[in-house]
C-alpha cells in the first residue's frame, strides 16, 4: 500500500524525505509539498507516516489487490515510548486500537559510549572475546563456548 500525502496537511517540512528508506518521498517543486514519486518501490513500511509531524501521510492499499475503503493509522511517540495503531475494516465491522511499547528507556540513555570504556588488554585482543564478553554471553562466570569446551570436532564429509 503505497503512501500518499494530503494536500491540506502537508507543509513541505521534508521529514518524510529525510527518513524514507526507499528514497521515494520527494517534494513537488511546484506545490512545495511531499509526494510518493515511485509507488511501486514502496514497502508500506510506514517510516514516513510515523515521521510526519502533521499526520499528513496515509496509505491506500496497493491497487492490484487491495480494495478501497480501509484505514491503518499510527501515532508514534518517542517521549512516551509508545506506538498507537488504529485499524478500520472496509466493511466497518472491525475497528481496533492497539498500543505497544517502542522502548523501555529514554532515547539513547542505555547505550554505552565505547570510547570511554577501559581499553581491552592484549590478552583480550588475542582472544575470541567481544566487548562485554564473556560475561554478557551467559551472565555468569562461564567462559565462551569453544569446540574443546563443548566436546566437538569439525570433520569433513557426510555426518548426521
Amino acid at each position, binding site marked *: 500500500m503505497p503512501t500518499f500525502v494530503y494536500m491540506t496537511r502537508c507543509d513541505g517540512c521534508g521529514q518524510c524525505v529525510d527518513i524514507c528508506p526507499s528514497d521515494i518521498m520527494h517534494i513537488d517543486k511546484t506545490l512545495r509539498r511531499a509526494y510518493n514519486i515511485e509507488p511501486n518501490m514502496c514497502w508500506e513500511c510506514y517510516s514516513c507516516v510515523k515521521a510526519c509531524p502533521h499526520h499528513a501521510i496515509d496509505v491506500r492499499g496497493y491497487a492490484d489487490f487491495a480494495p478501497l475503503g480501509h484505514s491503518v493509522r499510527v501515532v508514534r511517540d518517542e517521549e512516551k515510548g509508545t506506538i498507537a495503531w488504529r485499524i478500520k475494516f472496509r466493511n466497518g465491522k472491525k475497528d481496533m486500537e492497539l498500543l505497544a511499547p517502542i522502548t523501555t528507556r529514554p*532515547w539513547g540513555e542505555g547505550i554505552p559510549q565505547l570510547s570511554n570504556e577501559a581499553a*581491552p588488554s592484549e590478552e583480550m585482543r588475542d582472544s575470541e572475546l567481544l566487548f562485554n564478553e564473556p560475561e554478557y554471553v551467559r551472565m555468569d562466570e562461564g567462559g565462551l563456548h569453544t569446540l574443546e569446551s563443548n566436546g566437538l570436532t569439525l570433520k569433513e564429509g557426510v555426518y548426521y
Partner: protein
Amino acid sequence: MAYKTIIEDDIDILVAGAGLGGTGAAFEARYWGKDKKIVIAEKANIDRSGAVAQGLYAINCYMGTRWGENNPEDHVRYARMDLMGMVREDLAFDMARHVDSAVHQFEEWGLPLMKNPDTGTYLREGRWQIMIHGESYKPIVAEAAKKSADKVFNRICVTHFLMDDSKENRVAGAVGFNVRTGNYHVFKAKAVICGAGGASNIFKPRSVGEGAGRVWYAPWSSGSAYGLMIEAGAKMTQMENRIVLARFKDGYGPVGAYFLHLKTYTQNGVGEEYESKWFPALTKMVGKEYLDTEGQHLSHKPIPTCLRNHAFINEVNAGRGPIHMVTMEAFQDPHLEEIGWHNFLGMTVGQAVLWAATDVDPKYENPELTTSEPYVMGSHATGCGAWCSGPEDVSPDEYFWGYNRMTTVEGLFGAGDAVGGTPHAFSSGSFTEGRLAAKAACKYIDDGKAEGISVSDKQIADLKEKIYKPLETYTVGRNEIVAGSVNPNYINPRQGLDRLQKMMDEYCGGFGVNYMTNEKLLQIGLKKMKIFGEDLEKIAAEDIHELLRAWELKHRFLTSESVFQHTLFRKETRWPGYYYRGDAMKLDDENWHVLTVSQRDRNTGEYTMEKAPLYHLVGDKEE
C-alpha cells in the same frame, strides 16, 4: 559535470551499508579501535535503513545459554538440517556462541523484550525465537552505531569498492554518490566492512503494477552486498541457494509467530492436512538422512523449510488449493488475537492493511497463504554470500586465512547478508557478525596489513565517469525523440529491472515456472544475461533518483549472473521447494555434498567455479 568530488581520507574502518550487520560493526569497532577513524556510508537514513527499517516482532536467533536453553552447536545442527547440510559450520558456531551477548545488550539499550511471567526468561516463540516489541529496533541500534562512528554519511549509494593500486587484491575504500546532492564521494579506507543487503526484486514478483514493491524482503535490498563484492573479485559461495517463502498471500505477512506461538496450522482447500502425504516421495528424492518422517517425528526435529514448500507447491499443483492458515481456533482467544495483529504492525504493516481492505478477520475466516518469488540473501533460511574466513580457534585450514569474516579480498570484511554459508543469523546474528568483523578488521590494521595503500587519481576519475554515465546517456539520447520512454539508444532502470525479473523467472526457476530449471534453460538465460549486461552499459538516468535505481539494477544484475552460474554448476536438486534442476531431480550426496564457490574475474568478467569441502560439527552428545 557539475558534481563536486568530496574525498574523505585517512579512514581506518569504512562500514558500507548500515543495517543490522553494519551497525554492529560500527558499534564494536570503537571498542577495539579507540583511536581509529570509523566512518559509515549508508544509502538511506541509518535510523530507518536495511531489512529491519520497519521493525521486527521477534528476534529469531537467541540461544539462551544463560537459562540453560541451548548451546551453540544445537543451533548449528538445526541450521544444517534446515539447509540440507549446506552450512559453513565454523561461522555458524562462532555466530551462535556470541549472539546472546548482543541480545542482552539490546535489552539494556531499551529494546522491549517480552518476558515469560512464570520463569522471568525471555518469552519464547519457538526454540530459537524470542518475542519483542521491535518497532524501534533499528533506531535503537542506529543510536549505538552513531555513538561509535566518527562520521555517518547518509544517502550515499556506494557503487564500487576502491582497490589498492600498489598491491593486487587489496581493498582501499569505496566510492559512491549522494542521492540528494548528486556529489561524488570517495572514501579512502584501510579496511572495509560490507554490511550491504541481499536481493529482493531480482525474480519477477507475484505482485503486478503498483504492488510491485510489496515484496517479502525490502525493495531497497538491491543485492548491493553481492554486486559490490563480486565486482571487486571476491569469491562467493552458495549463490544458488535462493529462498522461497510460504507467507500470507499478497501481503507476505510473517507466519513464524502464527505457527510457533499462536499454534495455527495449515490445511488445503478441502480442509485436509496435506504435508505428510508428500513426504514418502520426497524422502526418495532427498534420502532418509534429510527427511525421515518417522525418525523426525520421534526426535521432534522440524522439517526443513524447503521441503515444506515442496509439499505446498505440489498440493496446489494437484488442484487442492488454496492453502489456508487455520487461525479461527487460536483467534477466539482475545490475547492471541491481539498478538496476531501486533505481529503484523511490528514488522509487516501491509498485511494488516490488506486484511482491513479485504475484510479478512482471521477470527472468522482462515486466510490464504502463498509461496513467494525467490530471494537471494544470506541471513534467513538461506546462506548466499561471500566466501569468508572463519575464526582461528574453530575453522579448518580451508576455511581460515587470517581474519574472521574477511573475504578473499584483503581488507574486505562481511557481515549479515554479505557472509555466505551462514543461514539463520537473522537480525541478532547479523549484528553479531558485524561485531566479529569489526574486531578482526581492527586487528588487520594493527598487524600492519593495510600499510602502503595507494589509490591513483586515475582510478578515482575513471570511477566517477562510470558512475555518472547513465545521466550522460540520457542527455545525449533524449534529444533524438519527441517524448516518452521509448528510445532506440537506451533503456531506463525500470525497463531494465523488468527484463531482469523476466529472465530470472523463466530461466532460473521463478514462481512463473514453478521454480523449475535445467541446464539448457540456464545456458539460454546466461546468453541473454550477457547481452543484457551490454545493454546495461547503455542504461539511462533522467535524474539523480534514477541514477540510484540504475546502480541498484547493476548490483542486482551482478547478483543474478552469479545465481545463474551457481545454479548451473550444482547438478542436483538440493533444496526441493526452493528450486528444481529438472535434469537432476535428486539430491546427490556422492558428488555434491560440498559448498559451491565462484569467482568473477575483475578484468574479464569470466567466472570460475569450484567445490569446497564441507565440514560438520561432530560431538559426543549428538541429539
